[in-house]
């Protein structure tokens, strides 16, 4: 009887599709996922671990907290240094993730707002053209957001281009930032990509045999529990590093450890800038999605009267030069829009004296103390004084 049913063409069509769909899901089994995820792909960890950071933040619901939203360039902020400089003792959770942009910021802002029911004391947000480019949307799609959020913020018909060319940016910025704007957020293509990656695991993680083989290469690892040097495969090393970093969240509140940043020799910074921009912002086009979400962030923080400190990060002269050739260095038309919001302070941090860089777009860790001080000096003007809460 069962054999007869299976042999019906309609049933066999469905069964074949199901078999393919379910086989792909094998890669979700934790023990298999651990082996097949390429050990070098740290962005997966930093995006996915933000959900655990969020759970951790929820345990702080009775205390004062602040948020840092940015790309890996904001990952190196130390919350303790901020506490010191700002003279407040709120817990500063750092939700920064590699190449993140405003859609990602808004996702966490809204999620935190709706589940904690308590507004943050202040928010520090990184913003320049890199956070507003198309790559910053696409990098976050496989590892962040949730289906309801994507569907809620989908513009099924959007009559503005997904990528806005430089010469038309003023016009579109005015349109997006107008008070009666109708745009919801993501384009239909972006939502489609999200669901493709959400439902197809091989597509989400780009699982490749070569990378799996590479994962099995062994390295020396100092096992602290046994106090001895052992040989472990790279996938195991990556897994242990992840666990260690998750544990570290209790001390860093989401900050990205310094060892994840590579140090590029100064002589190579020019080439690094050219190479980096091919990935980070390959053209002078800005993503309409990111601009729409930026507007949403401004509106949300404005409605709730949350001080929003927007800072423009410092980069190497080579990187600045590329932005200048794109006419995206100053973002004047965009910055003008901030004037309507009283809760915002915009800080250009490119004038800080520390000019050491890890690579073309990342400041060196040793500059963060000065950067924190610089931002705090201005931010204090907007953030009201409060008594210590812990």
């Amino acid at each position, binding site marked *: 009887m069962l054999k007869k049913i299976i042999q019906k*063409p309609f049933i*066999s069509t469905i069964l*074949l599709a199901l*078999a393919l769909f379910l086989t*792909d899901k094998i890669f979700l089994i934790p023990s298999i996922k651990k082996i097949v995820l390429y050990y070098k792909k740290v962005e997966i960890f930093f995006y996915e671990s933000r959900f655990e950071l969020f759970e951790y933040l929820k345990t702080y619901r009775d205390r004062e907290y602040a948020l840092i939203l940015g790309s890996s360039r904001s990952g190196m902020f130390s919350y303790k240094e901020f506490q010191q400089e700002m003279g407040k003792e709120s817990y500063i959770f750092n939700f920064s993730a590699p190449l993140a942009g405003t859609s990602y910021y808004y996702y966490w802002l809204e999620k935190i707002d709706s589940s904690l029911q308590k507004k943050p004391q202040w928010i520090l947000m990184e913003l320049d053209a890199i956070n507003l480019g198309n790559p910053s949307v*696409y990098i976050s799609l496989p590892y962040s957001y949730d289906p309801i959020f994507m569907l809620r913020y989908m513009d099924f018909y959007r009559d503005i281009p997904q990528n806005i060319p430089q010469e038309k940016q003023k016009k579109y910025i005015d349109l997006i930032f107008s008070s009666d704007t109708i745009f919801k957020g993501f384009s239909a293509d972006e939502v489609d990509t999200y669901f493709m990656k959400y*439902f197809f695991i091989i597509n989400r993680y780009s699982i490749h045999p070569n990378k799996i083989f590479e994962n099995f290469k062994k390295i020396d690892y100092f096992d602290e529990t046994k106090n001895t040097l052992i040989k472990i495969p790279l996938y195991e090393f990556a897994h242990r590093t992840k666990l260690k970093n998750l544990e570290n969240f209790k001390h860093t509140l989401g900050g990205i450890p310094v060892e994840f940043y590579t140090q590029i020799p100064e002589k190579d910074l020019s080439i690094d800038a050219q190479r980096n921009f091919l990935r980070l912002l390959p053209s002078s086009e800005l993503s309409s999605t990111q601009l729409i979400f930026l507007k949403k962030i401004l509106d949300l923080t404005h409605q709730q009267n949350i001080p929003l400190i927007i800072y423009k990060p410092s980069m190497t002269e080579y990187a600045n030069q590329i932005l200048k050739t794109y006419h995206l260095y100053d973002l004047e038309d965009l910055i003008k829009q901030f004037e309507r919001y009283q809760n915002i302070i915009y800080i250009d941090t490119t004038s800080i004296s520390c000019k050491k860089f890890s690579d073309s777009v990342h400041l060196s860790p040793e500059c963060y103390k000065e950067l924190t001080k610089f931002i705090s000096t201005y931010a204090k003007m907007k953030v009201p004084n409060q008594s210590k809460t812990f």
Partner: protein
Amino acid sequence: MRFITFGYLIFFVLVFVLYWQLKNKHHKLLLIAFASSLFYASWSIPFFIHFAFLILLNYFFSLRIRTNTNYKKIYFITIVLIDIFNLIFFKYFYLLFQFLYDLTKIELFQKQVLNNFLFEHFYQESIVLPLAISFYTFQLLAYIIDCYNEKIQRRVSLLEFYVFILFFPQLVAGPIMRHSDFFFQLDSEPCLTHEKVIKGYFLILIGLIKKAFIADNLTNTIQPVFLNPLEYNGFTNFLSAVGYAVRVYADFSGYTDIARGSAYLLGFHIPENFDAPFFSTTISEFWRRWHVTLSSWLRDYIYIPLGGNRISEFRTNINIIITFTLGGLWHGANYTYIVWGFFYGVLLVLEKPFLKSFQNIINKHIFFKFLAILYTFLFFSIGICFFNAPNILNSFYMLKQIFLGGVGNSFHKDQLIQILGFLVIVFGFNYLQYIRNKFILNIKRDYFILFLLGLFVIWLLGNYSPQTQSFIYFQF
């Protein structure tokens, strides 16, 4: 809605499941009509309304043509003019303006001036070309002409006609169906067989490989050369033309495969558009194997009405050139397409006197056949310099670089391997089309192969598919 999207996957699964749950043939057709409407409207609701209105209008006129013998000709001319005007307005508006500008040098006729006006006042970047307009116009015209010539005996209901024009698998980029390809299938109860399932799955999976793996990956490699041909040396320009020949085949044939595969899973058969074109030994054979439904449309509705080959040789040659030039113009509103079509028209005329002796030599030895295949492919690739260049000047720059051995940058090793590798794979796909009738169905084996192929495709797309580009033929 594009084929290689999650949206289409969900859409198709829903349609498939619902469709085969319906017991009534009429209900099945209603579902297809609704799904097809949704498919088109997901791109633009106003243009869907425009399209649906056009279908109704054509149906009304077709009834008049078939029943009212007194005013048959008037009805016929009216509806043909309406269809052609609709195509010209949306598709050739800019070309007309360009032509007027070239003639008068009045700035008002410049495309940019018009676009700036649209953008400043309506936030519109340009006049939008309705999706699939060239395809559905030709399909509508073929039906109307066949009605006029009394070639359609069957009574066709509005619902049947609506589905015939709007059938979603073939809606966006063909194949351009004729009444004889479709309506007879509506006479019997649709049924799903293992053969259709296996063919459907196989075509969809192969189509995905062609489109998402080959065509999309080639885009970034070759497009910069077409934009700046003088920056690259002659060999690189030539390789780009070859690369585009590979790409356009993979793209369009990939689309057709997915379209045919989707149709098979709904129990329909829609005609093949590619019959191993890269195995053609002459240019005329190539055009019988490449975009078959367009070539046969041009033959039946332009070349033969012009007199075909029943007139003097000179007139026949002129007709060939006119037909191919119009075929070129059908592809796009740019001088490059006109020259492209004209180029093949002239080639066919030049080749015609030698065809018989050609065939005799080719049949003598496989080596000659190989040379003939090479000759055809090379001429197709040369034509690409017109087909894909953004303007006519760039086409000539490319040809100059190729034939005068221009100097400049060249592809690096990886890009070279990519183009040549894809060329080999694409010839493999042509071979599959060449021997397609030799496959013998073996249900258990075929389902197992499909399962493995499916896993391979999921893996391939997950790792090697860049952000999917629009199908090339969607712009036509």
